[in-house]
């Protein structure tokens, strides 16, 4: 290579940052040494720009271009060697810069064009980050983006202001969605109950504009571990064991001893024809998680129906009286019985022997607030009541019941009580004779016989029997007078007795005590089957498992009977927390047999729900349907 080629007197200095290059060079001819001007015009129409030296012009052509020419400048100071001008060409830099500006302009134009198209077609392609999910698409059809984005449709000025204003999109979710707790707290839990709960918002998990399907962030144990203190890798590896009483931590609403039924009654030849073959003979899957026993009429009635009428309620009983305090003529007058001679009346007074040796019923003892074992005290009150009943039939009794009850309940409690029957019984007792019923009471209900007015429950769900039990519980909880409270509790205990209580309801229905300290005296009857414990964050599909494993006795795979459990003793106490289940706790290892690494799915959300009682507001349902 000729190294002198680039010496100052053989080559000119190249300036590649100049915007133009010589037009001759662009046509692969020898470029002029002066090159184009910065404005893009030809700078090489003459070989040099002559300079004035004293009084004559001198050639300035540089050595790299051949040095001063022989002709020299003209007398006017112009170069003698002139050329036709070239058309300088832009350099690559210029093309690059122009293309960059063009690209920016193209982007700006595209945004403007798509903006204009958006106003007509409502596709909002210029700022829509993706299609709306099919779950939400119909809600944006009418109002468009403003359903969720409040800044939309506010005009271009407001739109630009919104750049600096927080857009609280998550708040708009509450227009339609509803939860059992706070929408913006973890798991929608109660922030008062759990003050350390983290703030959350919908977009933390739910990502819109990701296509037809609403994109929900997938949860795994690692993500749950971020907040939860007890950390583990997966369900099969490290998940806490289920609680010792899971899922039977709450006292059953129906007292049903699986051990005695399965091992004793279902094997008894008397009942064996009614015995279920499998668990599903009594239980049915209501929803995925809820498996309830079938109705009483289907499951229990065949063996237990005949027991209900045997347990009667004694409303009023003529007790042993110490002496006769009733004016018989008043009784006869009230009862329409002809009056006998006064000598006889006198004799009756002197020779009075009570026809009854019984004690009064606990109901009447409570209503009259008298001790049931002291004839000297209760005789007067009871005879007054009998006289009143003889005169007014049910009215005095109803009055007494309503006076003792927080709410008027007598109509329900005395429903079906024939006033004439009560009156006739009272008339008989007022005259110190037994009441002889005209016929056998074979249909149940209210009836009087000899010394008692009784109620025979007609069957399961008898409303009168229920109302008497509820009355007994209510008054035992509300009485403040010590003496009356003693009678109320005696009456209540009789009602709650599975042997003596009306209908024997308490043989099966659990009685529980209110959990709060203030209301600890209040007892309630679980009339209906309460079903499974409410576990809003846990769900389990019995149906799927039974369909897969078979509906025979596969329940026993997980629900193992604990033969040593003292189940019935739990019901001796009214405390709902004191409970011993018939079953062992579900064993996590049983689940892990299938739900494990490389086997069946074991993601957290398979069994756990994030939200608490999610629902929709009515407003959402009013949205126009897609035709």
């Amino acid at each position, binding site marked *: *290579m000729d190294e002198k080629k680039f010496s100052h007197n053989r*080559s000119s200095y*190249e300036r*590649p940052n100049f915007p133009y*290059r*010589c037009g*001759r*060079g*662009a046509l*692969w*001819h*020898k*470029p002029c040494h002066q090159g184009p001007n910065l404005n893009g015009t030809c700078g090489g129409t003459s070989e040099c720009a002559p300079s004035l030296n004293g009084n004559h012009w001198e050639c300035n052509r540089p050595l790299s271009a051949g040095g001063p020419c022989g002709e020299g400048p003209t007398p006017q100071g112009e170069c003698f060697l002139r050329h036709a001008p070239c058309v300088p060409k832009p350099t*690559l830099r210029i*093309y*690059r810069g122009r*293309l*960059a*500006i*063009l*690209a*920016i302009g*193209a*982007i*700006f134009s*595209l*945004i403007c064009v*798509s903006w204009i198209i958006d106003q007509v077609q409502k596709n909002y*392609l*210029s*700022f*829509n*980050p*993706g*299609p709306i999910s099919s779950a939400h698409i119909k809600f944006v059809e009418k109002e468009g*983006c403003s359903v969720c*984005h409040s*800044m*939309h449709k506010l005009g271009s000025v407001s*739109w630009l202001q*919104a*750049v*600096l204003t*927080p*857009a609280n*999109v998550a708040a708009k979710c509450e227009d339609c969605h509803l939860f059992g707790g706070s929408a913006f707290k973890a798991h929608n839990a109660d922030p008062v109950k759990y003050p350390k709960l983290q703030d*959350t918002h919908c*977009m*933390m*998990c739910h990502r819109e*504009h*990701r*296509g037809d399907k609403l994109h929900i*962030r997938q949860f795994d144990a*690692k*993500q749950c571990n*971020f907040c939860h203190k007890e950390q583990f890798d997966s369900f099969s590896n490290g998940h806490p064991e289920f609680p010792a009483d899971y899922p039977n931590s709450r006292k059953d609403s129906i007292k049903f001893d699986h051990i005695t039924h399965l091992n004793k009654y279902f094997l008894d030849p008397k009942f064996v024809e009614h015995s279920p073959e499998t668990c599903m003979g009594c239980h049915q899957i209501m929803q995925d998680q809820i498996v309830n026993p079938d109705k009483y009429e289907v499951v229990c009635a065949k063996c237990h129906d005949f027991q209900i009428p045997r347990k009667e309620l004694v409303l009023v009983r003529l007790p042993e009286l110490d002496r006769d305090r009733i004016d018989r003529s008043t009784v006869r007058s009230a009862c329409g019985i002809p009056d006998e001679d006064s000598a006889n009346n006198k004799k009756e007074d002197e020779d009075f022997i009570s026809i009854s040796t019984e004690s009064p019923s606990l109901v009447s003892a409570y209503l009259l607030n008298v001790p049931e074992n002291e004839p000297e005290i209760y005789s007067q009150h009871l005879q007054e009541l009998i006289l009143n009943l003889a005169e007014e039939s049910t009215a005095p009794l109803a009055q007494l019941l309503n006076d003792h009850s927080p709410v008027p309940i007598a109509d329900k409690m005395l429903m079906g009580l024939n006033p004439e029957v009560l009156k006739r019984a009272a008339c008989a007792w007022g005259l110190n004779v037994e009441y002889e019923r005209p016929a056998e009471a074979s249909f149940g209900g209210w009836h009087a016989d000899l010394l008692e007015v009784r109620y025979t429950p007609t069957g399961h769900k008898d409303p009168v029997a229920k109302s008497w039990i509820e009355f007994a519980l209510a008054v035992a909880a509300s009485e403040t007078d010590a003496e009356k409270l003693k009678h109320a509790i005696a009456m209540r205990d009789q009602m709650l007795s599975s042997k003596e209580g009306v209908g024997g309801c308490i043989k099966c229905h659990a009685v529980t005590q209110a959990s709060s300290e203030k209301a600890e005296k209040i007892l309630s009857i679980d009339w209906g089957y309460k079903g499974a414990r409410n576990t809003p964050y846990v769900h389990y599909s019995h149906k799927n498992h039974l369909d897969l494993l078979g509906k025979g006795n596969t329940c026993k795979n997980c629900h193992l009977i604990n033969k040593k459990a003292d189940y019935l003793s739990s019901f001796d106490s009214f405390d709902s927390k004191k409970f011993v289940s018939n079953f062992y706790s579900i064993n996590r290892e049983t689940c892990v047999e299938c739900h494990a690494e490389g086997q069946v799915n074991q993601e957290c959300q398979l069994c756990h729900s994030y939200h608490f009682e999610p629902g929709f507001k009515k407003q959402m349902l009013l949205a126009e349907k897609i035709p």
Partner: protein
Amino acid sequence: MVRTWGIWISAILFFFYMTVWTNQTEMALASASVPTGWTLFAILTGLALFNIRKKFPAFPLVNSSSWYVFHVAGGFLAIGIFWLHIGSFWPVGLYERCLAILFYLCTFSGILGLIIQKLFPLRLTQSGAEYIYERIPSEISEIQKNAQDLLLACTRETSRDTLATHYLETLHWFFQRPRFFFSHLFGGEKSAHWIQQRCSNLERFLNAQERGYLRKLFALADVKRKIDLHYALQTVLKSWLIVHLPLAAALMALIVWHIMVVHVYFL
């Protein structure tokens, strides 16, 4: 070298940090897209500043080689941060897809430019000659003039126009301007074969004196061939930016729009 490795290791460490941080943020159910978005914007702005830096060579704004290393390392870092930002390789919205297309095209053109800048200078050095790109027209013109002077001398001295006629019919096309652009670009020898063939075909029709001139002409053609090689390679070395730069400009423009939209509708 230490500086180069320092920048590369910093970029790799930063990427790993961002990956771990994004993962942790996602685990905490927070959104990593906003911080990663701003990080990506900062990196891309830094990359774009390289072009501005070139316009101020007189200012002491760190030497260009460091800027270049930062640009390359930052470019690769931007790819990783981009994927962290969108959480996938391909977004779903139309305008976001436009943004992704521009990003990928810009990245691809940048990587192509990097490959070109690594390979072509080697080939230019291996050619054994040095030619300033801006002076190639002058060089070609000079060689063409030398070739024509040589032919005039040959015709004068030998009184034969065989060589001159052959030049006008074949070699003149070659000496006029750069030829065999794509052959040179992809490392082909088409040019050398073409010259060889044209000269060897003629040789048997020439006398000894003319053959001497033919050898000189062949030597000039060989020089011209090297200039053509330089022209082809240097043209691509300078021209790939014509693709990369406008794409980068369009990308930055759309990013500004993206930031506005995100702030209006989401943040």
